[in-house]
């Protein structure tokens, strides 16, 4: 009790102090308080710490360096820094941290924010404070749907894009009958709906779908059920993520479902997941990827720099954080100010290419950043030539087809 009361008091004092001192100063100051502050708010110690976490901060730092190198003396601000906070994947923590970052740490923008519920909480703060927010790590389409707002942008991926990529392609390739298992919470339910819609649109059928406990370490119940179903599903679609996904795949292999004619399709997978289990466990699995480090020499060059600093290869979320930070800074440069409304205006309808986004464009109508995405397949062990060399890109899905069409969108600013 005492602690939270003290924290509330401190936050209150901070708000007052910011109002008196910092504030949008006198007339012609273009950059508020003389510097640009980018905040990375994500999971630094929990299940998403490896796929975003501290390495996302590194990616953002790399963007700042590249931006400074590009613009030199002409850069809109001399001083650009990064602050960071851990939201522990909890919406309430995310909410108060976002408030603190915007008010006390004078952040001009918040980046990353995995976990959908936390992501939506931060969107609420962005709207209230009229400050920018580019989400990278969360999957929910709500950010650019019913709960969209003028200051919130969404980079990289969402559940529609994953379902559309994997569900549509795998069905179109002939695996018509699906059995879907999904973790019983917001993300899983969202994924299941998106996949079911995509599969039936592509002419397939979901024979059965089962919610699973979350977290869960024993999936045998569902794995045993699959090959015995009548008719037998051609593919098992798993919407599990992180540790649950690893558990499920280990057990999928133990039960030898692939030998029994039930293929595996994974809803959301990061390269760190493949690294965890080894390629052998995932061999042949198809999934949708927003970006792959070894897809082009350009990607690879960036990934090399990233590896020098972090010791690991980047996930698509890391590259997307770089892109989001870079595009934000470029927008400030073009606008000549960090005033939120002006920056939003320059970001809207902006078309661009960077190391992450090919054919990238920020839709003005819902602030979804669309770009080419990829259908990837996990290599066989014999095809792997170096560590982290796990994927081959089998199809590029053009930006215009990859994301939810505007016609279906419910966003109103």
């Amino acid at each position, binding site marked *: 009790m005492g602690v939270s009361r003290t924290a509330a008091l401190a936050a209150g004092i901070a708000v007052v102090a910011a109002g008196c001192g910092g504030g949008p100063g006198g007339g012609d100051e273009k950059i508020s308080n003389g510097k640009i502050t980018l905040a990375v708010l994500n999971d630094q110690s929990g299940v*998403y710490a490896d796929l975003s976490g501290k390495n996302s901060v590194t990616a953002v730092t790399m963007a700042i360096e590249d931006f400074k190198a590009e613009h030199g003396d002409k850069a809109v601000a001399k001083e650009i820094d990064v602050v960071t906070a851990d939201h522990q994947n909890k919406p309430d923590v995310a909410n108060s941290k976002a408030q603190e970052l915007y008010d006390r740490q004078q952040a001009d923008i918040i980046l990353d924010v995995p976990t959908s519920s936390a992501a939506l909480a931060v969107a609420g703060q962005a709207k209230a404070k009229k400050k920018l927010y580019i989400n990278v790590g969360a999957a929910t389409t709500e950010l650019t749907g019913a709960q969209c707002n003028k200051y919130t942008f969404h980079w990289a991926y969402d559940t529609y894009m994953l379902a559309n990529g994997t569900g549509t392609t795998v069905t179109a390739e002939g695996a018509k009958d699906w059995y879907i298992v999904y973790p*019983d919470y917001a993300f899983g339910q969202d994924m299941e709906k998106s996949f079911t819609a995509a599969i039936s649109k592509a002419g397939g059928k979901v024979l059965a779908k089962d919610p699973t*406990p979350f977290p869960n370490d024993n999936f045998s119940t569902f794995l*045993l059920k699959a090959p015995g179903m009548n008719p037998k599903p051609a593919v098992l679609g798993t919407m599990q993520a992180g540790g649950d996904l*690893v558990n499920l795949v280990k057990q999928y292999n133990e039960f030898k479902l692939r030998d029994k004619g039930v293929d595996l399709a994974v809803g959301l997978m990061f390269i760190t997941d493949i690294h965890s*289990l080894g390629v052998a466990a995932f061999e042949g699995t198809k999934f949708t990827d927003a970006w792959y480090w070894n897809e082009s020499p350009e990607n690879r060059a960036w990934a090399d720099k990233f590896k020098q600093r972090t010791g690991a290869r980047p996930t698509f979320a890391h590259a997307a954080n770089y892109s989001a930070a870079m595009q934000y800074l470029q927008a400030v440069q073009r606008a000549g100010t960090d005033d939120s409304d002006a920056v939003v205006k320059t970001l809207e309808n902006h078309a661009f290419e960077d190391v992450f986004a090919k054919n990238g464009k920020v839709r003005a109508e819902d602030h979804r950043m669309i770009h080419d995405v990829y259908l990837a397949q996990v290599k066989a062990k014999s095809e792997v030539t170096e560590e982290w060399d796990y994927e081959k890109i089998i199809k590029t899905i053009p930006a215009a087809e990859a994301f939810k069409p505007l016609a279906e969108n419910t966003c109103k600013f």
Partner: protein
Amino acid sequence: MQQVFNGLVSGSFYALLALGLAVIFGMLGVVNFAHGAFYMLGAFGAYILLTEAGVNFWLALVLVPLALGLFGVILERLLIRRLADLDPLYNFLLTFGLTLILQDLLKREYGVQSQPYPPPISATLDLGLFEYPAYQVFVLGCSIVVCLAVWFVLSRTRVGMIVRAATERPELTRAFGIDVGRWVTPVFGFGVALAGLAGVLAAPMRAVNPLMGADLIITVFAVVVIGGLGSTFGSVLAGFLIGVVGSLGNLYVPALSQTLVFILMAAVLLWRPAGLFGREEALT
């Protein structure tokens, strides 16, 4: 039938962990919240031995529990011992604090992503009615053998007699000339070793990451409560029971399956406040 078998495999882990918790609670009166962390250390022990020293699974199955048992002995001597005359709140703080320290040390080193551990047997066995991964059959067998061995030691040997007596009434046992304190350290070490064994067994079939024990241990506590605090036999039986209930729950009432074990716990406690095999007097 297959699902029941499934549940028994899950139950294998619950039983091994609950058994360790039960003997530790019985003998020391300590509710060991760090038990899940020891399980996690077991899995990591196997992983580290494999990657750093090339030690295979079968050897790890012996080495890791021994090493963890030793670790438990040291821990008991250094820290757990001091809980004896303190308020139970300190018991919670110490063992829970240990959990966080162990988890974060491994997080620092390995991150939160799961580590790969290859299955030692990848064949499936034809069990007549259905086929089943041979490794999981091995896990079940291993757990049953260990539980039976522990049961044999507890029920048929002098050591077991002393442990049973000291578990039931430690002070009275002393009054009959038995130095209960001398047995406390090895019993704690043994409980930790059991958790380590469960961890090694889990490595090939479950995600190996620093948080793997944290999720599991809550269920295991429910198992121990259902079985009757301090009752070793009850813990093992409840372990397998909860495994089966969870597995069937997954199949028939997936939305409820996670809560099912706690509903069962509440029901058992209403019906028998000391658990299925607990004695009322153990509550006071």
